C-alpha cells in the first residue's frame, strides 16, 4: 500500500513538472462560480514544497502500520493543498482550504491519544479561520463582481478605504489563525502534539505554510505591497502595516519561544517552536520590500525542511520507544546514532547557526528588518533567536544526551531505515542550502517580479547578497569543515589516549557514587528556572487558554439560558404566540 501511495504522491509532482509553470485551467460551476487553476511562481514554489513534503512523509510511513483510509485522506489533503496554491480564484482556494480542514481533521482523529477537546479546538479554529476567509471573499466579490484573483487585484484600489482595511484584517485573521499567531494559537499546540506523530510533521511543516501562502497571496498579489504602502503610509523605511505585523510576529516569536522551553512533551516543544518560527515569517512579510518577501520565503523553505526533519525524527523515536516526554527519554545517542546526528543537524539549522541553511534564512530575515530600519523588531528577532538556543538544546539533550531514564531505553535499536531516508534527504538539503544560499534567490526573484518588487542581485550560488553586506555560504561551510577536520586531527594525534565508553555512572558526583536509581537526567526539568526571571515569568504565566475557556463557558451559559425558553410547556408557548401577535399588532398599527 505504501508503494502505491508513494507513486500516487509522485503523480502530482510529475503533473506539475509537465505543465512547466504554465498551468491555466478553468471550469465553470455556475454562472458566478468558476473553478480555475492558474499557476504563479509563488504557487509553484509552495506546490513543490508541499508535494515533496508529502512524498517524504509517505516514505517515512513505510514502516508504520497505516490504514488505507489514512493514506487516502493524506493524499486528498495533498491534492487540496495543491488546489489552494494553484487556485486562480477564491472559490477554488476556499474549496481546497476546507477540504484541507476536514481531511486533516479526520487524519488527526486517527491518532491514538487524541481527545475530543483537542479535536474541537482544532476544527473550531480552522472553521473560524475559514469563515473569516469566506467573509473576506464575499466582501471582495461585492466590489469586484468576481472571485477571480486577477479581477480582485485590479479592482482593489477602487474600493473604499474601510472596505480595504476590513478585507486585509479578515484575510489576515484567517491566515494568522492557520499560522498560529499568538492569541490565535490556542489550537496549535494541542493539535500538533496529539496528532499522529508523522502527521504532525505535515501540520507544522506544510499546513501552517498554507497560512503563509495566503498572506503572500493577499499582501503581495491581491492587495499588492505598493497599495499597502499607499494605504497605511510609511514609517522609517518600511510601511506602517509592516511595522505592526513586525511587532505581531516578534511578540509571537518571543512568547512562543519561552513557552517552548518549558514544555515537557517533545511534540509540544516542537509545536511552540513552530509558532515561534512562523512568527519570524510574519514579522517580515508585511514590510513590502524585496528583502522582506525574500526573507519570508527563505524562512518558509528552511522551516519546512527543519520541521519535517525534526518531526519525523521525533516520530521515529516515539514509535521506537513509545515515549514522548523529555522526562521519559534520554541517553539515546549511542543507541540511535544516525537519528541523533539528524536531529543535531536539524537543531543547528533551527537555531540559525552557520554553516547550515538555517543561518541563510535568518540572515535574510535580519536583512529585511535592517532594510526597513525596523531596529527594535530586529532586536526582538535576535533576542528570540538567542532564547531559542535553550529549547534547541533541550530537544537534543532531553532525547539523546544525558542518561536514559528507564531500563528499556538502554536496549533500543536504531530506528527503521524508512524513517531515516527522508531525514537524510532533508539534512542534505539543509547542508545544501547552507553551502549555496544564493541558489534560492533564483527561485525568489520571479516571485518578486510577480509582486512587482525589485529583484535581489544574484552573483553566485554560494554567495548571499544583501543590502548591508553579503556572506559566502560555500566559503563558510568549507572553512568550517577544514578547520573542524584540522582540529580534530590535531587533537586525535595528541598522544594521550582517551578512555572511551566509560561507564555512564563514572562521573564526578560530589563524592557520591550514583547508582541506577539515582536520577541523573537533568533534562526534563530545565526551563523551569525561567519562571524566576521576572520578565519571562510574566510571559510564561500568561496564557490564552483562560480567555478561550471563559469564552466556552460563557457560550455554554448563554446556551443554557436560551434553552430555558424551550422548556416544553405548550400552554406558555400558546400564550407567547398570542402576546407576540398583540405586541406586533400594536407596533404595526401605531
Amino acid at each position, binding site marked *: 500500500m505504501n508503494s502505491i501511495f508513494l507513486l500516487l504522491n509522485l503523480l502530482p509532482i510529475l503533473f506539475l513538472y509537465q505543465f512547466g509553470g504554465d498551468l491555466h485551467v478553468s471550469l465553470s460551476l455556475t454562472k458566478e462560480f468558476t473553478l480555475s487553476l492558474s499557476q504563479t511562481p509563488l504557487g509553484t514554489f509552495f506546490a513543490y514544497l508541499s508535494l515533496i513534503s508529502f512524498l517524504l512523509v509517505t516514505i517515512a510511513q513505510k514502516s508504520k502500520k497505516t490504514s488505507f483510509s489514512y493514506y487516502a485522506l493524506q493524499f486528498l489533503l495533498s491534492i487540496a493543498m495543491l488546489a489552494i496554491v494553484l487556485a486562480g480564484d477564491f472559490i477554488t482556494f476556499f474549496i481546497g482550504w476546507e477540504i484541507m480542514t476536514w481531511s486533516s481533521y479526520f487524519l488527526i482523529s486517527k491518532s491514538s491519544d487524541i481527545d475530543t477537546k483537542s479535536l474541537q479546538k482544532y476544527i473550531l479554529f480552522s472553521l473560524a479561520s475559514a469563515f473569516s476567509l469566506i467573509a473576506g471573499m464575499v466582501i471582495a466579490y461585492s466590489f469586484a463582481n468576481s472571485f477571480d484573483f486577477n479581477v480582485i487585484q485590479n479592482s482593489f484600489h477602487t474600493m473604499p478605504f474601510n472596505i480595504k482595511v476590513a478585507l486585509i484584517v479578515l484575510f489576515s485573521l484567517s491566515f494568522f489563525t492557520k499560522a498560529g499567531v499568538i492569541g490565535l494559537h490556542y489550537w496549535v499546540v494541542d493539535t500538533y502534539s496529539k496528532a499522529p506523530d508523522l502527521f504532525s510533521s505535515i501540520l507544522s511543516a506544510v499546513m501552517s505554510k498554507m497560512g503563509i501562502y495566503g498572506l503572500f497571496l493577499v499582501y503581495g498579489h491581491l492587495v499588492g505591497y505598493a497599495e499597502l504602502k499607499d494605504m497605511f503610509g510609511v514609517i522609517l523605511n518600511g510601511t506602517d502595516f509592516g511595522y505592526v505585523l513586525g511587532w505581531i510576529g516578534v511578540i509571537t516569536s518571543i512568547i512562543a519561544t519561552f513557552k517552548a522551553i518549558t514544555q515537557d512533551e517533545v511534540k509540544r516543544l516542537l509545536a511552540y517552536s513552530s509558532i515561534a518560527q512562523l512568527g519570524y515569517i510574519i514579522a517580515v512579510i508585511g514590510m513590502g520590500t524585496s528583502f522582506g518577501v525574500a526573507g519570508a520565503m527563505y524562512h518558509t523553505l528552511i522551516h519546512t525542511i527543519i520541521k519535517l526533519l525534526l518531526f519525523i525524527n521525533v516520530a521515529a523515536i516515539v514509535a521506537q520507544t513509545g515515549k514522548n516526554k523529555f522526562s521519559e527519554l534520554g541517553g539515546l545517542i549511542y543507541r540511535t546514532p544516525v537519528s541523533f546526528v539528524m536531529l543535531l543537524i536539524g537543531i543547528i539549522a533551527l537555531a540559525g547557526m552557520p554553516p547550515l541553511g538555517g543561518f541563510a534564512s535568518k540572515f535574510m530575515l535580519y536583512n529585511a528588518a535592517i532594510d526597513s530600519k525596523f531596529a527594535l523588531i530586529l532586536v526582538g528577532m535576535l533576542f528570540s533567536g538567542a532564547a531559542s*538556543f535553550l529549547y534547541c538544546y533541550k530537544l537534543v539533550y532531553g532525547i539523546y544526551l544525558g542518561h536514559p531514564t528507564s531500563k528499556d531505553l538502554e536496549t533500543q535499536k536504531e530506528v527503521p531505515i524508512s524513517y531515516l531516508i527522508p531525514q537524510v534527504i532533508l539534512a542534505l538539503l539543509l547542508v545544501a542550502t547552507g553551502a549555496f544560499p544564493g541558489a534560492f534567490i533564483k527561485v525568489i526573484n520571479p516571485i518578486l517580479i510577480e509582486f512587482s518588487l525589485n529583484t535581489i542581485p544574484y552573483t553566485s550560488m554560494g554567495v548571499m547578497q544583501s543590502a548591508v553586506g553579503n556572506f559566502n555560504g560555500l566559503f563558510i561551510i568549507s572553512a568550517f569543515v577544514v578547520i*573542524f577536520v584540522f582540529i580534530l586531527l590535531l587533537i586525535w594525534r595528541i598522544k594521550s589516549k582517551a578512555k572511551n565508553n*566509560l561507564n555512564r555512572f563514572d562521573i564526578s558526583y560530589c563524592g557520591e557514587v550514583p547508582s541506577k536509581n539515582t536520577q541523573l537526567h537533568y533534562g526534563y526539568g530545565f526551563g523551569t528556572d525561567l519562571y524566576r526571571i521576572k520578565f519571562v515569568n510574566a510571559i510564561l504565566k500568561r496564557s490564552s487558554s483562560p480567555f478561550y475557556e471563559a469564552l466556552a463557558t460563557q457560550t455554554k451559559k448563554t446556551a443554557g439560558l436560551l434553552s430555558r425558553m424551550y422548556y416544553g410547556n405548550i400552554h406558555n408557548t400558546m400564550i407567547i404566540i398570542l402576546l407576540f401577535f398583540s405586541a406586533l399588532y400594536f407596533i404595526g398599527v401605531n
Partner: protein
Amino acid sequence: MIFQIILLIMLAYVVGFIYMGLYRNITARIQGRYGPTVYQTFYDSIKLFSKKNSVSYGWMFYLGPVIMATGAVLTLILVPVFSDSDFLRSVTTQGNLFLLLYLMVLGPLGNALAVGTGGNPFGVMGVVRGLTRLIGLELPFYIAVVGLIIASNSSDIVHIIDLQKTTGLNILVHPFLFIAAMISMVGFFGASPFDIPGAPQEVYSGPRTEFSGKFLALLMSQGSIFAFAKLVLIIDLFLGGADSLWMLVIKTFAIFITIIFIGIVYGRYKVEQAVDFLMKIPTLIGVIGLVRIIWFG
C-alpha cells in the same frame, strides 16, 4: 593565506593566554593576594595537552570541544584584525556581523553537546545556566550591533571600521551602544557579576566538570582564542580597529582591563538576577542609543 591564519591563531593563542594570566593576576592583586604568574594558564594548557590519559564518554564527547574550537577559530579569522591592511582581508569579506553573532554561539553549543554527552548533571546545570544567561547577555549586545549596522548601513565590519575614520570613533558617536556592548562583554568573558555558569565555588565545576586532559586543554585554548577574537571585535566596532600590532595590543588591553575592573568590584549574580539586570539597565541604555540612531540619526 593559510600561513596568515596559522599566524593569527598563534597570536590569539599567546595573547589570549597572557590576558587570562593577567586576569587572574590582577584579580588576585586587587583582592590582596599574590596570585599565579601571568604565564600560569599557559603552563596549564601545555601540561593538559601532554597528559597521558583523558576521559571520554564517546564520540560526541570528543566532537564537542572540536566544534567549540572550530567556532572560535572561525570567529577569529572572520574578524578583521588590522584595519588598512590586506591581512586576511580576502577571508573577512566572506562573512559579516550577523554571521559573527551566530558563530559566537557555536562554541557554547558544542560545549553543551559534549557536556550533555558526559551526562554529569552538574555539567548540564552549568550549561543550562549558561544558555539562560545568554538570553540576557545577548540582548544588549544585539542592540549595540544592530545600532551600529543601521548607523553605518552595513554589516560588513571592514566598512564599519572605515566609516569611523570619517565620522569619528563609534565609542564617541554612539556611547550608549558602547556601554551596552561592554556590559554584555563582561558576561561574555565570564567575569563577575555574570560568571554563574562556571561558578567554581558553588556548583562543583560547571560545564567543565567532566573534561580532563586534552579536552580541557582544547577548551582552555579555544577560550583564549575566542577571548582575543571578542576583544578584537569590540575594538573593530567601537574603537576604529587597529592598524598595527601595537595599537591592537593597546586597544584590546584597554578594553580588557576595563572589563576586569568592572567585573572585579561586583559580586556574582544568580542567573535570574543576571538576566533581570541585563534585560533592564543595559538594554535600556542600548535602546536609548538605538532610538537615537533610528529616529534622530
